């Protein structure tokens, strides 16, 4: 538990204002329920997602660094991003600005031309929603706050690619006990176990859902997602918990597509970890935006006495 994350800057990103709104809503509600303050970055822009880097990686650094600069100018030492893509890009901008002169030069030049001060590495720390809850509250305190335990709900925790790879942009990970692991991440497992879930042994925690080509190479994405869904079911999971809007909507979309196009039906439910945590803290399913998900999971939640 640490006080330094009690009040942090909040960078929702584009997806959380659109299809990932259930994640945005549940993150804010969980923060409120736990007494944590989130202050949204003023006039933020897109981090570049997974697309701008394919046009030019340094442009992505410029776009992401601008958001870090906003956090700095607002007086924050920490910015929290719930989206894996945003989190990854802000981390990567931080790394590139610290280690690559070419990136510093491009960011300085583009900032100057657009009439803004460039961001300099080392001023703002970027954290993920998982690190925020784990470090600001911790399992012990969470266990005390649970009003409506997940009561043994069987969960496969799915972290995806951008939260752990590549290793070098996450210098705080793989630091031994207590730190997050890039090969076997466990922060979501820890948080949901404290909320009463039974985490199943799931070997595909950091497998790829094909999110980068979810529309441009749909068959590849559907095959990758189907592998994740069927493996989770084989591991005994009733729910796959997610912590990224691209993974989440990818799993939902390709679960539907696998059924319609490949004739392969799976019944495992897909929910944001903040939605599960929120319900355990006593919030209603509607309050944490379960009805805003593309997939239907209310039957299971009702049967389990949640929401």
């Amino acid at each position: 538990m640490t006080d330094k994350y009690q009040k942090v800057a909040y960078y929702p990103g584009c997806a959380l204002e659109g299809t990932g709104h259930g994640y945005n809503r549940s993150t804010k509600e969980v923060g409120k329920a736990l007494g944590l303050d989130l202050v949204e970055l003023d006039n933020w822009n897109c981090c570049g997602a997974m697309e701008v880097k394919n046009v030019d990686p340094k442009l992505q650094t410029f776009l992401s660094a601008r958001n870090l600069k906003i956090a700095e100018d607002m007086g924050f030492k920490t910015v929290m991003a719930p989206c894996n893509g945003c989190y990854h890009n802000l981390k990567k901008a931080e790394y590139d600005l610290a280690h690559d002169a070419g990136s510093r030069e491009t960011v300085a030049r583009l900032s100057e031309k657009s009439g803004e001060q460039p961001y300099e590495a080392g001023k703002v720390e970027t954290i993920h929603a998982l690190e925020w809850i784990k470090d600001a509250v911790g399992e012990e305190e969470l266990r005390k706050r649970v009003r409506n335990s997940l009561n043994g709900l069987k969960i496969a925790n799915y972290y995806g690619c951008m939260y752990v790879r590549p290793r070098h942009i996450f210098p705080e990970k793989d630091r031994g006990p207590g730190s997050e692991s890039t090969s076997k991440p466990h922060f979501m497992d820890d948080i949901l176990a404290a909320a009463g879930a039974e985490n199943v042994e799931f070997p595909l925690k950091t497998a790829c859902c094909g999110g980068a080509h979810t529309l441009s190479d749909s068959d590849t994405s559907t095959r990758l997602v189907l592998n994740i869904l069927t493996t989770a079911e084989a591991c005994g999971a009733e729910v796959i918990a997610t912590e990224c809007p691209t993974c989440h909507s990818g799993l939902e979309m390709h679960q539907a597509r696998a059924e319609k196009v490949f004739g392969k039906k799976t019944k495992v439910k897909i929910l944001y970890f903040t939605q599960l945590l929120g319900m355990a803290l006593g919030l209603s399913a509607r309050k944490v935006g379960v009805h805003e998900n593309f997939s239907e999971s209310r039957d299971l939640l009702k049967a389990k006495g949640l929401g």
Partner: protein
Amino acid sequence: MPIHEKHLIRPENLLRKDKLEVEGVDVSGDWSTFIQTRVIADYNESLQDEIAALPGGENIHRCWQCGSCTNACTVNMLNPDFNPRYWIYLIRLGLESELVRDKDIIWQCVSCNKCTYACPRDVVPEAVMHATAHWLELKGYVPEKPSVIFDEAFSGQVFARGKIEEGRLMRKFFARTGQKLAQPWLVAMVKGLVSRMPVGLLMRLGLAGIIHPSTRNWGRKRAAINEYVAEQNARHRRALGLAAQPTESHS
């Protein structure tokens, strides 16, 4: 997981000899000639430099062919022909014609970064795949691939307004790739969503389609970014020895 290697016996290398006798022994039938004597005269000696000049290809010279990238690869699991180690090998040798045989699958890299995570030499194979796909397009070997159309539609919105709006992005992508937006699975999914009456969300998505999300005072940034993109495109074409402007537009 085993390292899947590229199959050396290709259909076009199979020879059928209906009647073949060697020193009195009948050896008629199918013969693989994968070690056929050949003289390679079409090396592109600057192939590695060309890839290295494109964003993401900078570290290709560091590769020592350990194969960790292919071993870790997500797409290789689905298609054994998707082989980053092999492509890096071909590029470093300058075997352009061999590389071009796989021109229609190289763009399928999903950017999961498992290769970059596994690489002991900091080659950043994920970025090399994108540089190679980019190179294939600049050289005119392939038309714009769907992923590039998506990247450009997405980045175009970011450059223009600072933010994206997913509904408009999807419509634009489906239109440019000639697909119907009303895919049965998409329709089923949206119907399911609407049946749960997420009034706030629907209003939000509908409104975003009319008033596009944008970052305030974006004008100067848009100009700076567009200027930078044009400058970089010109630099890439120069590095590949191409004319300043593409001869035909894909738009």
